[in-house]
């Protein structure tokens, strides 16, 4: 059932949603939009196109505690320190970010299951939001994502002066149940408006600089040829080796487990890691990936070749365009797709 709510009443909706759980939604921070817990003072911005960071933060946080080790004499005690999961809602996730959870699920929910991730997934409700227009750097359509019709527990649209709301899953239904009184039922003219808007949006995506990006050359054939291509060397030269692309990426899932000596014992935690870093894959004997070329190649081969090979052809890129927007030197996955994808993008 499609519900609607006047845009000037969203405050009440947020208050209600945040009553018994944490509500994350895009707010203005440092001149850009980012997901943050809702507070009555928060500067909510629903007209953003892309947040600086993705919703990955809520399922695979940048750091999370694992355990504490304490030593007394010869006795060592281990205490789990992972925070108890609590229910939360992510409001305003875009289609690309919602798709990224599929990518992460396949990694963390397949055997052996990552219990931390699983707990977060079970406690989180995704309220997605359709894109009425694209950001300049978007190319989700290349991965078959329909930005105008995202998935999620609840899908929302903004059209005219209204927020439209439709529950899609039992979890979404449950959330909607508490909020129904705030909203009214939409009619067919509303539906039509949403559809029209969606059509326009889809057309606009195609007109973008990356709108016609094709992955035809990335079918998984000729793995060795791709791997040994001399183009990697050329393309990786300008890479600074920072972790921006991996940290803003909704699908990058690599992490490191580190021990921190607190002076009273050891705090073990996990934190994001980046395959762009020189100490990634560092082992006792040294590092198998010695140069930025190898690290650079790994990142894109993983996204476009290895991951799909293991996951029914699903690419671990969702075309959100964050890396395109944020790379300090304007290197990005679209360039790689074009350069090494043969003639498809010629």
């Amino acid at each position: 059932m499609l519900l609607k709510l006047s845009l000037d009443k969203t405050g009440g909706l947020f208050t209600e949603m945040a009553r018994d759980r944490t509500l994350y939604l895009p707010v203005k921070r440092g001149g850009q939009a980012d997901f943050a817990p809702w507070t009555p003072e928060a500067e909510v911005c629903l007209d953003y196109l892309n947040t600086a960071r993705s919703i990955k933060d809520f399922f695979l946080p940048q750091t999370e505690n694992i355990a504490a080790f304490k030593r007394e004499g010869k006795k060592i005690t281990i205490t789990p320190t992972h925070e108890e999961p609590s229910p939360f809602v992510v409001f305003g996730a875009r289609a690309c970010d919602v798709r990224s959870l599929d990518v992460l699920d396949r990694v963390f929910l397949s055997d052996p299951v990552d219990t931390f991730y699983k707990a977060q997934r079970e406690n989180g409700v995704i309220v997605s939001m359709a894109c009425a227009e694209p950001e300049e750097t978007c190319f989700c359509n290349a991965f078959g994502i329909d930005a105008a019709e995202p998935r999620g527990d609840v899908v929302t649209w903004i059209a005219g002066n209204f927020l439209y709301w439709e529950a899609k899953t039992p979890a979404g239904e449950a959330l909607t149940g508490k909020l129904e009184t705030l909203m009214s039922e939409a009619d067919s003219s509303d539906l039509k408006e949403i559809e029209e808007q969606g059509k326009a949006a889809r057309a606009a995506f195609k007109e973008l600089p990356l709108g016609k990006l094709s992955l035809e050359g990335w079918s998984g054939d000729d793995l060795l040829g791709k791997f040994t291509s001399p183009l990697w060397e050329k393309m990786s030269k300008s890479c600074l080796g920072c972790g921006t692309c991996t940290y803003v990426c909704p699908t990058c899932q690599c992490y490191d487990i580190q021990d921190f000596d607190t002076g009273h014992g050891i705090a073990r935690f996990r934190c994001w890691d980046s395959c762009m870093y020189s100490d990634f894959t560092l082992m006792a004997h040294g590092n198998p990936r010695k140069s930025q070329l190898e690290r650079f190649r790994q990142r894109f081969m993983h996204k476009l070749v290895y991951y799909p090979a293991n996951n029914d052809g699903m690419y671990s890129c969702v075309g959100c365009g964050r890396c395109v927007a944020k790379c300090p030197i304007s290197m990005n996955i679209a360039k790689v797709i074009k350069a090494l994808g043969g003639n498809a993008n010629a």
Partner: protein
Amino acid sequence: MPAVKEIQEKMRARAGELLRDGGVSMALGWKRGEFCHDPEPAFFESEAELDNFVYDGFSSPLLSKYLIETIRKDKQKGEGKGSKFLVFLKPCDSYGLNLLLKEHRVERERVYAVGVGCPGMLDVDKIRAAGVKNMRSFDETETEVTIHASSGDKTLARRDILLEKCLVCKGPEFAVQDEVLAPGLPSFEGGDRFAGVTELESMSPEERFSFWRNELSRCIRCNACRNACPVCSCNKCVFDNPQSGVQAKSNADSFEENMFHIVRAFHVAGRCSDCGECSRVCPQKIPLHLLNRKFIKDINAFYGAFQAGADAEARAPLTNYEFGDVEPGAVVKRGGGA
């Protein structure tokens, strides 16, 4: 004064000449990206490759740091010994190169530095903030930029859409160069680059603390600031080195957010040429230059005006001293620097 397009053609032609018969084996410049506003640092090895060469208001990424790796690789190959690398430098980039030369990270004889006048680099976010959506192309002069976008054409005053670092431009002089194309740019005067620092200094400690908490809490430790910095060129950063005792891959808490940025600013204190790359590349838009400029402002006030990278000889303030230097206690007493 030549138009920016003309400078680009001059540069392309000169790079071609030098690659052909100027004893230069590679030219470091910029090449066209996917959009009209994202040129990428590029390494041209032949004249033919120069078709993609671009120099415009978005050629902001600094190139000189790439010389370290370029020369290192060249040495490893063992061939092409003594071959030179052409690098294009905007006036402010030249300070960074000088620092690399001074710290022996790059050998002078391996570099052919071509200075190019800079009309002031543009900030795509400011253009977007002006209501421009989906930029397709643009025309630029020294004073105006006309943008063609899906949202329509728009002409903006160049000054209004400059990168922060360009608003406080150090001027058209080159600290190091072998030749200069299009000298005299930029023709505008930079503003007071310490205004931001002074403003912070005038706040109460509580206000300053919450300002920095708000800024630094956004840090995701992507290391873009560090890796883009021309003086943060350590073979291995202490924060990446498990043996250093301070290694940290992420900011586990607020202390580490502070620690990373204080230590990074301290390590480049007296060496930072204020090129502004750290702030430009920060994906979280943290005004990192306000940390570095605080040190620069203090150094100027305590030890006399100093521009890192202005020459390759002067001792950096932290490797120097005078008997009558200010006491640390006096610094704190006076309340937030000079």
